[in-house]
């Protein structure tokens, strides 16, 4: 048992010197993260709104293809890429920087010493993404999924990532603790893996394009790993930190943590090639990807057991806390989306899901219902501590939760049900060798589903506005210095507080 595990003495006698020193230390850490952390959160939230706007444009284009159709910069292919890149590299990555670095600094008990370097990285990263999105819209797009931002912003993004990521390494290297907690492994690994993935992908796809389908293999090795080895570890690291933190109960099993981490590291990075099943790549690569994708069941189940056993019995408490509500929603969806993903990698299942909205639904399931919801939870916990302010409105948090949670569940279901039926229609061949449904019938079948999808997107947009207003309100409201503050909770608080 490590020195940080609460002992009976700690809880009975909370004024013990060790706890006091620790809290003083954490207070310093929080203060050193105040400027960069807030900057990352604000940038992330702004990107979230920009990404939502692009998403709405694409949704409208599905039901009304000539909408803004006379303008080249707003053609579907570009708006869609602008949406993807602003949510991945704008929202998700900035959110990951904010929450990931803060958790790393806290767990290592090291404060960020040279905030200016971190801030420079933060500013340049966001300038890079802005340049990238403008580049996409004006037609400099690189036609590689997840790598659309033009080559001229690559150096800027690479350098600023180095300036930001180095703080995770520095914090870990000079950590003040003996024990290394599971969140630290995940976050450290994520900050190491992304530059490698990005460099390889940039070299083999943008600067010195590889020959033939090696491009496609590199593309999907990269793109799937941005989710698997960058965003997923950040999301899991956040969940692993905040679930025990807010509920005040230790993680169920250290062994499961270790096991889950290393199996994820081993299997996830092979999984990406399942995007090429049936394609012009040698069968053995696909088989390896299929096996790795199915083996992902192991880390997923391990993490699910670990989280579930930690939370079990504390549901009411969790329901009250905004942080836990979002994070538990995210963690449950991590389990579901990963198991669906493993199934989708089987050749027989992929036959129906490939090339349809099922994949799109799956991507939103992973990126939104899992990762984004966990990051919302992380921000609800982190921001009051960085700013020494409380969330202004519990109503807005509730609106945020219900709109995004119901919205994303509707969207995922709509896309996956539609995708599955379309896949079945596409593949059905009659006895005389002709297709059972013409392409026209399939396109017409999809139309009502596109409308439903727009409805779900609209719900999510409302949720995002609620969040946006709450963040802005929090930043600009006058602080009431003399009153002791109360956490903003979602149900009537009982005696104790756990924001």
């Amino acid at each position, binding site marked *: 048992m490590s020195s940080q595990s609460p002992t009976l003495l700690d809880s009975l006698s*909370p004024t013990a010197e060790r706890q006091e020193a620790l809290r003083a230390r954490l207070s310093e850490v929080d203060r050193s993260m105040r400027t960069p952390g807030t900057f990352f959160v604000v940038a992330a939230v702004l990107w979230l709104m920009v990404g939502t706007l692009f998403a709405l444009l694409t949704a409208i284009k599905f039901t009304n293809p000539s909408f803004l159709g006379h303008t080249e910069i707003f053609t579907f292919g570009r708006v869609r890429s602008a949406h993807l890149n602003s949510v991945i590299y704008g929202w998700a990555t900035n959110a990951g920087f904010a929450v990931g670095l803060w958790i790393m600094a806290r767990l290592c008990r090291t404060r960020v010493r040279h905030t200016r370097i971190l801030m420079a990285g933060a500013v340049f990263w966001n300038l890079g993404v802005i340049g990238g999105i403008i580049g996409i819209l004006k037609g400099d797009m690189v036609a590689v999924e997840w790598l659309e931002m033009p080559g001229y912003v690559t150096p800027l993004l690479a350098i600023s990532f180095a300036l930001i990521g180095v703080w995770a390494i520095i914090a870990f290297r000079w950590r003040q603790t003996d024990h290394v907690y599971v969140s630290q492994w995940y976050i450290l690994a994520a900050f190491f893996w992304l530059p490698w993935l990005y460099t390889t992908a940039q070299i083999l796809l943008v600067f010195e394009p590889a020959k033939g389908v090696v491009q496609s293999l590199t593309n999907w090795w990269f793109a799937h790993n941005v989710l698997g080895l960058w965003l997923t570890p950040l999301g899991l690291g956040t969940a692993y930190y905040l679930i025990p933190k807010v509920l005040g109960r230790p993680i169920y099993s250290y062994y499961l943590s270790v096991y889950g981490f290393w199996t994820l590291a081993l299997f996830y990075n092979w999984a990406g090639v399942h995007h090429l099943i049936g394609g012009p790549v040698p069968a053995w690569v696909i088989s390896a990807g299929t096996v790795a994708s199915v083996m992902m069941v192991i880390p997923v189940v391990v993490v699910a057991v670990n989280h579930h056993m930690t939370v079990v019995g504390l549901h009411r408490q969790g329901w009250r806390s905004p942080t836990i509500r979002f994070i538990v929603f995210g963690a449950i969806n991590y389990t579901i989306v990963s198991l669906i993903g493993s199934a989708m990698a089987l050749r027989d299942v992929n036959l129906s899901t490939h090339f349809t909205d099922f994949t799109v639904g799956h991507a939103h399931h992973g990126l939104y219902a899992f990762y984004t919801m966990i990051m919302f939870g992380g921000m609800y916990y982190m921001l009051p501590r960085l700013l020494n302010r409380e969330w202004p409105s519990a109503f807005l948090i509730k609106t945020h939760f219900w709109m995004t949670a119901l919205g994303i569940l509707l969207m995922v279901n709509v896309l996956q049900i539609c995708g599955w039926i379309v896949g079945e229609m596409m593949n059905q061949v009659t006895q005389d060798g002709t297709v059972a449904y013409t392409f026209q019938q399939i396109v017409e079948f999809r139309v009502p589903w596109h409308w439903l999808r727009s409805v779900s997107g609209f719900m999510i947009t409302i949720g995002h506005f609620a969040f946006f207003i709450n963040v802005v309100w929090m930043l600009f409201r006058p602080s009431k210095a003399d009153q002791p503050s109360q956490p903003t909770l979602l149900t009537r608080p009982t005696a104790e507080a756990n924001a």
Partner: protein
Amino acid sequence: MSDDIRKQYPPDGNPRETFEGNRFEDARMQRVHDQLMRERPEPSENFAPLPLALTVLVMFLCVWAGLYLAKYTFEFDPFHYNEDRAANAVADEGPKEVDMMALGKRTFSQNCVACHQQDGQGQPGVYPPLAGSEWVQGNPKRLIAIVLHGLAGEVHVNGETYNNAMTPFGRLRDQQIAAVLTYVRSTPDFGNESDPVTEDMVAEVRDETSDQSEQWSQDQLDELYPIDG
């Protein structure tokens, strides 16, 4: 979860920690640390062992993975694309009896439906119909010529005028062209009832029109292959 942990963190969610406000009297000091003060301790871990069911699951998956890789990696052969077959080579089963209507329907659904539609009605004002069309039920050689080299400019079909162009399909084999025209001319789906077209007829027209490098115009066709010819 061990028993003493259960006591320490009871399921009702009320941990025995009342740190808040006990220590610091100074209101400002307390204000600064509000959020921090009410926090629970930093996370830690228990040491529950791996559940047995999980171990069984892992063993099962490992066995499955081994079998799958053994069966579907094909010695890492870069030319093996098809996991169903021992080799990529198409088995040669010798000549088969061909059902011209079936082949025709297949060829039609692969190449023609996009414009002339499944029901052969075309699109009003854009693509002429095949169902009930005098062109389709007339001179078969004229039809063969159109499929081989395409058609462009104003055409008059069943009293309507169309000004568009048709893609040449000379790349199709004679047998496919014969089959698709047989289908188009006699399928009950369109209500057409004309004679079949044979491969020899296609070969003959292909030979006769080998000099044609552009799409036909209606005038050219009327001269070479009149509808009632």
